[in-house]
Structures are given as C-alpha cells and as structure tokens.
C-alpha cells in the first residue's frame, strides 16, 4: 500500500442561497496515493468540478468548505490565505476545464508561463527565463518558438499543452485535471492525454482526473471514483470497476456505454438526477435505482464502506456483507 498523499475527509461544499442550501459536495471522503491517477466521473451537476475547486480552496461565498483536505499531512483548510496562495501551483496545481478560455488573449505564452513562478518569488538569472520556458514547453511537446506567440495563434490542443506546462511549472505534487480534453478532437485528445499521463508518471505525481467520459477513464486512470449528486457512490481499481461494478448506478453507467460488439443496443438510465438544492433524505440514486429496497433507500443514506480491500461502495444492497 502506497502512502496516501491526498486525504480528503468528510468534505462538504455548501452554497447558501435564497432557494435553500445547495449541497454540491456532501460528505466526501477520498484518498489518493503518491504516483496514482484517480479518475472522478460524474454527470453534470454531480459536484465534481466543485470538489476540484474546493481542494484548491477556490470556492467563493456564498459557498463554504468544511471538512479536511490533507495534502502531505497539511490541512489546506487550516492554512492562511497567503499560505494557501503559495501552496497553489507549488504543491497542488490544476489544469482548468476549457483551456481555450483560461489563457490571457493579450499576453504572450512566455509571460503566462512565467507569471506563476515570478509571483511565487522565483528568481531567474539573465537569460534563464527563456531557458526555463523552453524547457517547460519542450516537456509538453511544444516547440520553443511557441513562447513568443499569442493564444490565438495556437490550436486547441496546443493551448491545452500550454496550460499543462503552466500547471507543472513549479513541480507540484498533486495535479488536478478538470476535463482537460473535453473540447478536443479524438486524435488530439489521445495525444494530449498521453502527454499528461507520461508527465504524471515521469514526475511521480498524483493526479485527479475529472470527467464524464468513462472511455477516457478506462484508458488513463488507475483508480476510479463514481460521483452522483454530491456523493461518492463507488471507488475501486479501474479494472475491477469495469469488470465487476457493484453499485447499481455504476452498473447502469457502464451498461449505457457503447462498446464494440453490441451495436444498436441501447441501455439508457431512466429518470433524471435529483436536485441538490435541499436534497431529499436517503440515497440520491434511489429514485432511478432498479434495485431499490423499499423503506430503506429513500430514508437512509448509505455510508461509503470498504467491502473489499481498496473497494468502497455506498449502497444498502451490501449491508449484509461484513
């Protein structure tokens, strides 16, 4: 068992708004070991991006973050604002969703890559800046001449590579990638994902890959966490999860995917996810679940329990086991 680098304990991100309390992330517990790639899948509105922002402590009022986020033994939620600012990028960095919109359109790539490092107080000798930028760009598979360009001169895949170079510029230990390839074509998606995977392995980082594409997860991550309406439904090794999903939601999700061989067979999941504004009690999936246990699932939330080593499931169907 590798040492957990990231330990998230009972993380709650609530937004107090007029209509009630939006429980975007509701009591989430998760660990990521050093050198592991964890995938976090969920539908839109399931709270996966909110969770990523919460780890970076970038939730703004009326949002609140409660719980514990331990990175290398330090609770990020206990840091001062200034300490947290230092920790971002140097300890924990993020590749944001939609790289297209996260670069400054009127600044050269070089300045954007350097910006974070300079802000964190790194000093460069004369001529060292260019070298560092060229080194970082080379790492993500871009030519040095890109440094002098503006974002509009780059393709979507190249922009995404630039955001990866920025995220890794200060050798963070944890990389959060929020749908890094959702706007890219399949071929470019594969190239960018292979580049990210190679860097994560070479630099021995921990990565949390957020997305909704189960195919991408199957190709990339070691462990998979399935999120639904602010809760984690199941966590396990990616192969086990695909081979033997335990939670009915995971089962339905995997069943709904197109694979070679079952052409023309469609298994959608009926119904819609529940609202996270003042959510009803009980399991959030109960209203769509084919295996719902009357009288239990609608009223009691199933805790996330370790059924087998490394395999956690939140479902009343397995109450009898262990």
């Amino acid at each position, binding site marked *: 068992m590798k040492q957990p680098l990231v330990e998230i304990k009972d993380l709650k991100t609530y937004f107090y708004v007029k209509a009630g309390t939006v429980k975007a992330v509701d009591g989430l517990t998760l660990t990521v070991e050093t050198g592991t790639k964890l995938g976090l899948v969920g*539908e*839109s509105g399931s709270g996966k991006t909110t969770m990523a922002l919460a780890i970076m402590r970038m939730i703004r009022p009326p949002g609140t973050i409660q719980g514990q986020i331990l990175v290398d033994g330090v609770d990020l939620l206990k840091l001062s604002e200034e300490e947290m600012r230092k920790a971002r990028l140097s300890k924990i960095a993020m590749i944001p969703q939609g790289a297209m919109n996260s670069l400054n359109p009127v600044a050269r790539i070089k300045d954007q890559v350097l910006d974070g490092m300079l802000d964190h107080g790194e000093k460069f000798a004369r001529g060292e800046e260019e070298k560092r930028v060229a080194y970082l760009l080379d790492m993500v598979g871009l030519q040095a001449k890109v440094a002098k360009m503006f974002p509009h001169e780059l393709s*979507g895949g190249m922009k995404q590579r630039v955001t990866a170079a920025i995220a890794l510029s200060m050798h963070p230990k944890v990389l959060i990638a929020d749908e890094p390839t959702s706007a890219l*074509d*399949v*071929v*470019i*998606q*594969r190239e960018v*994902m*292979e580049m990210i995977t190679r860097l994560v392995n070479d630099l021995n980082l921990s990565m949390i890959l957020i997305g*909704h*594409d*189960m*195919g*991408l*997860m*199957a*190709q990339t991550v070691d462990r998979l966490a399935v999120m639904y309406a602010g809760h984690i439904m199941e966590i396990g090794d*990616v*192969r086990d999860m*695909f081979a033997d999903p335990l939670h009915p939601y995971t089962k*339905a*999700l*995997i069943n*709904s*995917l*197109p*694979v*070679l061989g079952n*052409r*023309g067979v*469609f*298994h*959608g*999941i*009926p119904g*819609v*996810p529940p609202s996270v504004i003042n959510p009803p009690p009980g399991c959030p999936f109960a209203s769509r679940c084919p295996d719902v246990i009357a009288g239990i699932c609608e009223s009691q939330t199933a805790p996330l329990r370790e059924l087998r080593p490394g395999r956690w499931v939140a479902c009343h169907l397995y109450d009898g086991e262990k």
Partner: protein
Amino acid sequence: MAPIVELRNVSKFFGSGPSRTVALDDMTFSVDEDFAKIVTIAGESGSGKTTILMLLLGFYDPSLGSVMYRGKDLRKLDKDDTVDFRRNVQAVFQDPFAVYNPFYKVDNLLSIPIKNFKIAKGKEESRHLMETALTRVGLRPEETLGRFPHQLSGGQRQRIAVARALILKPKILLADEPVSMVDASLRATLLKQIRDLNQELQIPILYITHDLTTSYHVSDYIIVLYHGSVMEAGNVEEVIRSPKHPYTKLLVNSIPWPDPNMLWGATAEEVKGKAAELGTHACKFANRCPHAFEPCVKEQPDLFRTNKGTQVAACFLFQGSETLAKDKLGTLFTK
C-alpha cells in the same frame, strides 16, 4: 425513388485567393427519400461536416456546384417549395442551450411550427399533439410545457428537439452532434430515440459527429471526411472494425473505448505531425500519413474499392483495385 436532398459537385470556400480555406471539396452525395437508414458523416473539426449540414439546410450557399431539394436548386425554390423544404428537412443541433430563446417558454419550439405549417386545427389539437410527442420521448408534458429553457436540463431540451421532429414528420432529419453536450446516462436514451424515429417514420437520418463510438452504435453507414474530402466510406461495422484508410485507422485507434483491456494505440502507427503545406493536388492526409509515398503528393487519389467492394478508401495503397466514381458514393449504401 428520387433523392430528397442532393449535393452536386459542391465545394465551399471561405475567404479567397491562395489562402482560402477549402471547407468542402467537390462533394457529390444524395439521399433517397425512402432510404430509411442512418448515415454518419464523421470527421474532426475542420473536416467540413458542419459545412455539409449548413449547405443542406440552405444556411450557406455553395461556392461551386449546387445543393438540390427534390431535384430543384435550393437557391431557386419558390415560396411553396420553400415551405415544403422547411417542413420536410428538420435538424437537431448540437447545442441544446442555443436553440432556445431564453425569453420564451419551451412550448414555442413545438407550437410555432404547428401553427406555421398548419398541422393542427385549433389550440386543443395542438396541445394534444405536443403532449403526445413529449410523452413519446420520455418527458412528462406537465413538467415540460410552460417552462423556460433554463428550467430544463440539456438532455430534456434535446429531447424536445426530437419531439419536434416527431410532430413535423419530416422526410429527412439532420442531426449535428445531438448527444455531445448531453450527459453519459442520457446519451444512450437519446440515441435510442433517434434510432426509433428513423424506424418509425422510415426516414433517412444524417448523423454528423466526431464521436465514432456513438456513430458505431447508432448508424448503418459512415462517411469519413478529412479537410473537405471523403477518406473512407462504407458499412459502419466494417469501417470501424477494419478501417482501411490510414486516417480512419488513426481515428479508430484514438477512440477511448470504455474497456481497460482495450488500450489506446495498441495497434497505432506512428503519425507525423503537421508538416509543410501540400499543394492542391495532393492527398490531404499525405503530410501526416505514415504510408505516404510518391503518388500521394502528386494527385488526389480516387475512391478505391476495398473489402470486396463494399467499402471505399481514397488512398493509393489500394491502387489497382476497382475505383468508384466520386458521384456514385451513394451506391455503397444499399437499402
């Protein structure tokens, strides 16, 4: 049976002079009215797939060639024909947010065409039609009608677009990435509804996508485009399972299949990055192609028949095989 829509030697350029962008390069393709199959037009961004849709809907005028609706040039339709065209050629668009006017209730998407095409007599029948169609796509009318777009999810909104097609009973449906912005759990449901629509109305559907997994699932035939030219075409099962053209191979190898035992690039070939610009007479994929050889940069390949003639690939690797004339592409797709 006569073709319902037809592209005749259509090219579309953006800009002019040597730096113009060729979005579509001499495409000839027609769809018969009684061809009740789903044909995928697949390609990456910039392949010209959306240009085809815009041309077929009459939103773009072709730079060369002509777009025909029931044998008449789209630009020269008279008033009656235009109404007929607008009713019979329906589309489901990619972005379920952009097709609705946020200030109007979603009912408008259904009630306005009913009114304009005089499908119902009176309000009650109109309401009844709308309710039946919504129920058919798995929505509860009482939870849908009277709402504003922002109160519904992307999946719900996309299903209303399908319901609209059900009411109008078009003769052909053009679906432009209908599921790319919809959640995974609803994707299968929506694809099934598109398939059902095709079966029930017995109409052809053009499914435009960059996502080969969904196209494999929902369609019967596929045309793979690259920079405005056809690279490969044929039966979807055959093309995806045994792609012949190096570009299709690259695409198929990049599909992230949801199966940890079927990893990316297991059979991938090294592909070159984008090299120097090619002249107008070269195969468009030549500068990235791992197999490129002399003839590839000199002229554009014809469509060579592969796989016992049921599939075509525009690639000199199959030089020597029988060729298929560009304007006979439709003959591959049998009813």
